[in-house]
């Protein structure tokens, strides 16, 4: 049923769907944007953390006196105490605030901790060696996989997996906190959840009876910009609580931002997933069975169950999953949790099965699209991607080719939800003609601020430059955390409804002047309010607002809203294809080209939507070819917790990237989130392209040169 809140039809849109530059772009590109790390309020103290050098140990003695005696040290708080265990290197033990960062660092060196060192495990890839660290996980069977494997015309067995990676946010985790009065705390937070930090901090402070009781509303969280989170920045964390306590203790603002090695060790990791897979198909390529024994680590805690098999669901399947508890930094959500790793395990196994069937993977995946939730979407997108990468021209049987550089293509498919999160927005129209959206959301770099402005501008029929967005502040109406691709649907829905409601009030104000009997007879168009039946009868926006005299229109919009139409949806499909070259002598893989075809419903800002997909491809190239957290079992130490040996792609490493949004095709579904889905397929697509190039499977990502050479050796050399 149509409602007044529905998105305008394509012909009636003047802003939505266009390519608009991000509104905070100039502030960021000129260094004016102020991140949590950039806050230097008067009297600032800088805090540093004391962290564990051991992977597993019990604290037996703490001596803070040397640190406390150092001139310029203003406060020390313990995060862990004597008797507590630290279960990974880098685990936080205490925080010290000092006049300068240099003094704080000196103090950390004078802070003495003694430990009883316990045995540790930091590697999980060889699950046979994990012993009592193996924790049972999901067991699930559908159909009769054993029988199906016996009856299949063609079967394949293989080992696949993806190593743990870390978020490596450019702005490390941290906050600048000022506890000013008894019930007056300001947190400049690097967070994906402006609306959640206050409650999280209040809960943590309540655990300390020596502190005054504060409620979430006593805590103001300010985050106009933040330097990357990717799923790892939803909580105040121990260092944020410590900064608040140090601020209370000293009466001064305290900044604690993690060091780079701390950021990589303790502020977020994407779990590994590995699996021994058995798959079977009929002669015609129809997949009949998927059977996997899988394992993963999320650190010492329990990990989530795998999303296996991924997207393609044969009638017979069995998943037996275990978690391995390791003394490594704890897992946090990472763009599309579980999906990228499970895409590797599934789609690499299926590509190898297609090879045994002597089928082109494009034909195999199209044939088995019937086993997905959206067969037509995938078939259409596979065809489009194949066209854009010139699959027919480039595909050859795996390993065919000559010379020391071999080229190959591979593909992967993915899905994600992206439903709208809960959101409230207030739209304010003032007599001077200004129009603002106020919303307690945050722009984590995805372009949320720009999207809100575009929805407001579209609804009020004003140019984007004429509207304001006030966000990134917990004093505005609450809106959900930015995770799981839920933000764009949430904020665009609440903003749309608030803007429609506010516009209705303005229409009522001018109805008399226009000779209309009700607001329903009036529409907003090109900066005017006018009669629908007689467009020449109109009043300019500023003149209309002047009619408000001293009054201000302030209207709310909510997501969800049962009577407010359906503005957002969830559930998308996407296809990616990669074209790589592999040097058979060095094992080095080079990206030639990558294509992403992606559906995400109604697109608000085409330019920023494309940026999300480009970014996903590049992040995916990093984890496909280089990126990996490396621990040393002997010492328990995270060896590459820096940016030199934790390898990320540079500008020359990405090849040609092509993004094709399925614009217009699925607009009727409304807005659907986009942050996660395109980040899923790159690793599987690139691994499959390497297989096509060299005719040997590199079982796990990242596909590093040593593994390429090992796979070639196993296959019997270059031939």
């Amino acid at each position, binding site marked *: 049923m149509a409602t007044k809140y529905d998105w305008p039809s394509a012909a009636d849109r003047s802003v939505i769907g266009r390519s608009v530059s991000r509104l905070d772009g100039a502030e960021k*590109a000129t260094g004016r944007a102020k991140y949590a790390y950039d806050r230097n309020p008067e009297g600032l103290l800088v805090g540093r953390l004391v962290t564990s050098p051991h992977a597993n140990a019990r604290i037996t003695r703490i001596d803070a006196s040397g640190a406390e005696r150092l*001139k*310029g040290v203003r406060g020390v708080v313990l995060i862990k105490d004597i008797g507590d265990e630290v279960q990974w290197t880098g685990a936080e033990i205490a925080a010290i605030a000092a*006049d300068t960062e240099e003094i704080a660092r000196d103090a950390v060196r004078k802070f003495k901790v003694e430990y009883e060192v316990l045995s540790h495990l930091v590697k999980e890839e060889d699950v046979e060696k994990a012993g009592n660290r193996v924790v049972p996980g999901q067991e699930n069977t559908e159909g009769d996989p054993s029988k199906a494997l016996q009856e299949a015309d063609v079967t394949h067995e293989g080992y696949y997996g993806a190593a743990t990676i870390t978020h490596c946010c450019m702005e490390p985790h941290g906050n600048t906190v000022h506890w000013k009065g008894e019930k007056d705390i300001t947190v400049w937070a690097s967070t994906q959840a402006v609306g959640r930090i206050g409650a999280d901090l209040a809960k943590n402070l309540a655990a300390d009876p020596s502190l005054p009781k504060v409620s979430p509303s006593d805590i103001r969280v300010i985050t106009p910009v933040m330097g990357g989170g990717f799923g790892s920045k939803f909580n105040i964390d121990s260092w944020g609580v410590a900064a608040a306590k140090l601020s209370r203790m000293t009466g001064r603002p305290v900044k604690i931002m993690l*060091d780079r090695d701390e950021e990589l060790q303790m502020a977020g990791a994407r779990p590994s997933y590995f699996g021994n897979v058995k798959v079977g198909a009929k002669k015609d390529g129809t997949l009949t069975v998927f059977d996997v024994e899988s394992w993963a680590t999320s650190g010492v805690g329990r990990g989530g169950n795998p999303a296996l098999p991924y997207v393609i669901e044969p009638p017979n399947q069995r998943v037996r999953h275990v978690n391995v508890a390791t003394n490594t930094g704890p897992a946090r959500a990472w763009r599309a949790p579980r999906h990228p790793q499970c895409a590797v395990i599934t789609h690499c196994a299926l590509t190898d099965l297609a090879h045994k069937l002597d089928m082109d993977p494009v034909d195999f995946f199209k044939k088995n699209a019937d086993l997905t939730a959206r067969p037509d979407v995938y078939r259409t997108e596979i065809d489009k991607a194949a066209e854009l990468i010139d699959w027919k021209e480039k595909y050859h049987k795996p390993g065919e080719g000559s010379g020391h550089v071999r080229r190959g293509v591979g593909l992967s498919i993915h899905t994600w939800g992206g439903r709208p999160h809960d959101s409230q927005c207030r739209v304010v129209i003032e007599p001077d003609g200004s129009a603002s959206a106020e919303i307690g959301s945050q722009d984590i770099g995805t372009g949320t601020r720009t999207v809100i402005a575009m929805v407001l501008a579209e609804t009020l029929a004003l140019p984007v430059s004429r509207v304001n967005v006030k966000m990134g502040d917990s004093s505005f109406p609450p809106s959900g955390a930015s995770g799981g691709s839920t933000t764009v649907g949430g904020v665009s829905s609440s903003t749309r409804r608030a803007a429609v409601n506010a516009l209705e009030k303005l229409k009522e104000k001018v109805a008399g002047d226009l000779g209309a009997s009700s607001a329903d007879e009036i529409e907003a168009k090109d900066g005017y309010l006018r009669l629908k039946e007689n467009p020449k009868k109109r009043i300019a926006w500023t003149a209309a607002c002047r009619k408000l005299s001293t009054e201000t229109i302030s209207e709310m919009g909510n997501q969800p809203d049962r009577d407010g139409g359906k503005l957002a949806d969830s559930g998308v499909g996407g296809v990616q294809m990669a074209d790589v070259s592999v040097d058979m002598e060095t094992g080095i893989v080079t990206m030639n080209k990558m294509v992403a075809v992606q559906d995400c419903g109604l697109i608000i800002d085409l330019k920023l939507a494309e940026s999300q997909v480009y970014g996903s491809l590049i992040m995916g190239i990093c984890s496909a070819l280089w990126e990996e957290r490396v621990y040393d079992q002997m010492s328990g130490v995270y060896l590459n917790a820096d940016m030199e040996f934790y390898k990320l792609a540079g*500008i020359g490493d990405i090849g040609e990237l092509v993004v094709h949004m399925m614009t217009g095709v699925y607009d009727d579904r409304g807005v659907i989130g986009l942050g996660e889905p395109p980040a899923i397929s790159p690793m599987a697509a690139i691994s499959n392209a390497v297989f096509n190039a060299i005719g040997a499977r590199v079982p796990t990502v990242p596909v590093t040169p040593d593994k390429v050479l090992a796979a070639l050796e196993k296959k019997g050399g270059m031939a």
Partner: protein
Amino acid sequence: MEGLKETQPPNGFSRRSFIQGVSVGSGAAGALLATPEAEAAGGDVVGPGAVSMTLRINGRNHSLEAEPRVTLLDALRDRLDMTGAKKVCDRATCGACTVMVDGQAVYACTMLAIEAEGREIRTIESLSANDPVPRNFVKHDAQQCGFCTPGFVMACQAFLENNPNPSQADVEAGLSGNICRCGTYVGVRLAALDAAKEVKGGRRRGY
């Protein structure tokens, strides 16, 4: 914010312990001091307490007190509240702290503030939204979270001033010292090539 001056032993300080102090404080900076240039600087031992220095930044002199171990990046961000240059790796890998010193791109995390005395320092704060490089970064959406962006913009500015009419391969080589986590390289490539049409060689403002 300096409180350390009077807490440090005034005497008994040797060049050797100075270099050790620097190495602990800021990693790669120790190696930097061991260059022939530093050797040639000879006997002028300063520190370890705070010393006065004057930095010429964006055409203006700024006086400050800081220990010799303080990097140019920390001097800019913590002492002068010029927070455009970002601290990300703090080990000369990622380029988020890039500034220009005497017309060349430099990682500010790996140069000591005292080393920058007497040199022309140019930071992101010298650029406005209408300058070609930032304007083209916005136009081509060469940023997402934006935390690497000021460093990228300065690297790009220095590169284009020294390399007019670059090819895409030139741009990729010239900007290979900067890392972005959000994955904005496609936009950066386009922004650099477009800005190249407007940024001419030479230092436009004399610094």
